[in-house]
């Protein structure tokens, strides 16, 4: 589309991928990369078979098993027969339709949102979909990436396109610099707390501002990952030298890399382009965050207290908060740092990359996990795991009393055997604190990797800014 009017990055990527648009119809949008996993795909493949359809572009489709996989010894058979069937089904579907599959014994296996960027499959300017709501993670590299349902997975498999209504755009600008001890996870939890869990509904969010620009590549992924927790299907950050450095040399990075970078440099939002909505925040206001409720917007600074339902503006919210506190077994006014923990989980597509593990290991080094706490670290991918082991991080964790596991989603959603018992309280680096998310009756508090490691050692939440690091 030839136009000289200034455009947002979203508009540039969207316009470039329009196959067909008609008034009063949804747009047919071309999809550059389709990521597939075992839980949301079997019914889609079955649909293709029933309709006698093929996968249109198997070479633009990549699959792995992550949600359901055991994180213990991979040489042993999978004990849960239904989990095994789901993974076997994916393997067979990939074979039948000619799709690349990173199986459990593949060095590249891992959480789908960790391996995409890591392998260089994710690239600026692409449209990327996956039957998983955290697909926005890939937006950190300047892609338009969003989660889809299983019917849409089938649609993309069959046509390599998706029917979409154009979302509105929202800019979340964060000026300044995050202070010491405050991480990307704290930033995104803070933003969700500010705009609410439905503030982004109907929008594609672009994170901008100096605080976002100064984030490293993996930190950007943490921010974009949780866009859905603010209701936004897609979240993105403009590519820049941080992005280009990150992607250079990765297995699937473009062969003529410099030419690709030249193209990518045209992607960022033009000066003068407008968003449907813009909000501005100051990085200095962000402190280490801890969620106290049963949705990610129910969050407070680590120095804060659990609020009271009476503090809420309307009846629906009062009821929701009262229910959350009851489920979480917390009293209004309780100091966040007094909350004691039973379990700690470091992992998930939000925080299981090498920098996350480094941050957690730095805290854990030379300490021991509190006796009443069970703590585990689950790397996001086989490659992250090997890198961490090469750096000796596994030893730091094991010496401190953390369990060190194989890659997968694990206790982020507890479909595999890693789960909370009823009533157990967990500090988790994942992205959802919904009721029962980590196991029926389990209570989840979302935090950054460093805060999670510190909580494991202290047995309760502590302000990471006061931590004494040992070398």
């Amino acid at each position: 589309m030839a136009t000289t009017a200034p455009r947002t990055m979203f508009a540039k990527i969207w316009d470039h991928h329009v196959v067909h648009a008609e008034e009063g119809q949804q747009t047919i949008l071309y999809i550059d990369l389709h990521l597939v996993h075992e839980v949301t795909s079997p019914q889609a493949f079955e649909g293709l078979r029933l309709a006698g359809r093929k996968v249109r572009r198997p070479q633009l489709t990549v699959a792995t098993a992550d949600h359901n996989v055991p994180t213990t010894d991979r040489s042993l058979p999978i004990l849960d027969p239904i989990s095994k069937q789901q993974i076997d089904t994916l393997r067979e579907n990939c074979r039948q339709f000619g799709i690349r599959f990173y199986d459990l014994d593949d060095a590249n296996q891992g959480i789908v949102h960790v391996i995409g960027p890591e392998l260089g499959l994710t690239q600026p300017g692409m449209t990327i979909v996956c039957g998983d709501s955290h697909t926005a993670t890939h937006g950190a590299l300047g892609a338009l990436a969003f989660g889809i349902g299983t019917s849409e997975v089938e649609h993309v498999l069959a046509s390599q396109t998706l029917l979409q209504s154009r979302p509105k755009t929202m800019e979340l600008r964060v000026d300044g610099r995050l202070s010491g001890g405050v991480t990307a996870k704290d930033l995104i939890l803070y933003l969700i707390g500010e705009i609410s869990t439905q503030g982004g509904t109907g929008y594609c969010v672009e994170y901008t501002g100096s605080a976002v620009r100064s984030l490293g590549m993996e930190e950007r992924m943490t921010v974009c990952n949780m866009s859905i927790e603010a209701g936004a299907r897609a979240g993105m950050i403009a590519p820049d030298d941080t992005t280009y450095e990150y992607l250079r040399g990765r297995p699937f990075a473009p062969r003529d890399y410099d030419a690709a970078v030249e193209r990518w440099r045209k992607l960022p939002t033009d000066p003068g382009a407008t968003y449907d909505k813009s909000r501005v925040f100051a990085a200095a206001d962000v402190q280490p965050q801890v969620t106290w409720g049963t949705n990610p917007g129910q969050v407070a600074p680590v120095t804060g207290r659990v609020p009271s339902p009476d503090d809420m503006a309307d009846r629906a919210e009062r009821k929701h908060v009262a229910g959350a506190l009851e489920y979480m077994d917390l009293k209004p006014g309780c100091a966040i740092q007094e909350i004691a923990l039973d379990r700690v989980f470091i992992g998930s597509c939000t925080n299981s990359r090498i920098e996350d593990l480094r941050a957690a290991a730095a805290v854990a080094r030379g300490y021991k996990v509190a006796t009443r706490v069970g703590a585990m670290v689950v790397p996001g991918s086989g490659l992250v795991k090997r890198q961490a082991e090469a750096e000796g991080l596994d030893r730091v964790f094991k010496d401190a009393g953390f369990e060190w596991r194989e890659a997968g989603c694990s206790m982020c959603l507890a479909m595999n055997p890693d789960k909370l018992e009823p009533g157990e309280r967990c500090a988790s680096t994942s992205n959802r604190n919904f009721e029962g998310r980590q196991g029926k009756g389990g209570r989840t508090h979302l935090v950054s990797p460093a805060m999670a490691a510190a909580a494991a050692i202290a047995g309760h939440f502590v302000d990471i800014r006061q931590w004494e690091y040992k070398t």
Partner: protein
Amino acid sequence: MQPFKKHTGLVAAMDRANVDTDQIIPKQFLKRIERTGFGRFLFHDWRFLDDGTPNPEFELNHPDLRGASILLARRNFGCGSSREHAPWALHDYGFRVLVAPSFADIFYNNCFKNGMLPIRLDEPTVDELFARAASHRHRLTVCLETCRISDETGLSIPFEVEPFRRHCLLDGLDDIGLTMEHEHRIAVYEKAHGLISNP
């Protein structure tokens, strides 16, 4: 897909905000590889006690709500995971219409793909429907042709649905079939963008 034109049914009111898809269909039921049979797991962890018997406190277990097919809820219904198992479970249980002040995007979209109609109404109107639903076995009629909700007492509320989605639901059209009518355009796009060397 079954066309949806008009539906009359019993209303089940669920006075909860931010009902997430982990509650609608908990993860232990996502391992199935079929599309059907999820209804008996709908709201499982709320609906059943630990010993597997129905939880008498849970809204949908009220004897008066047996056979409900219209679900009334509060804001941000269906937030969280993209799992289409959530609409599958609601549909399989018997729901055909969902009414709330707002729905999460992916969930909203998934409903249409399964012949279910999610209706967004402003909060005061939803309050009004909650008040009415409090009376014994309140029934509503939802007409997609006229885009109106009505009841026997003369209630008549307009609602809006994107024209394309409305059209697909009214005629029970299959999205993939529709898109495949444009297959030549997809091929042209792929060629123009050098995506496929040997189309």
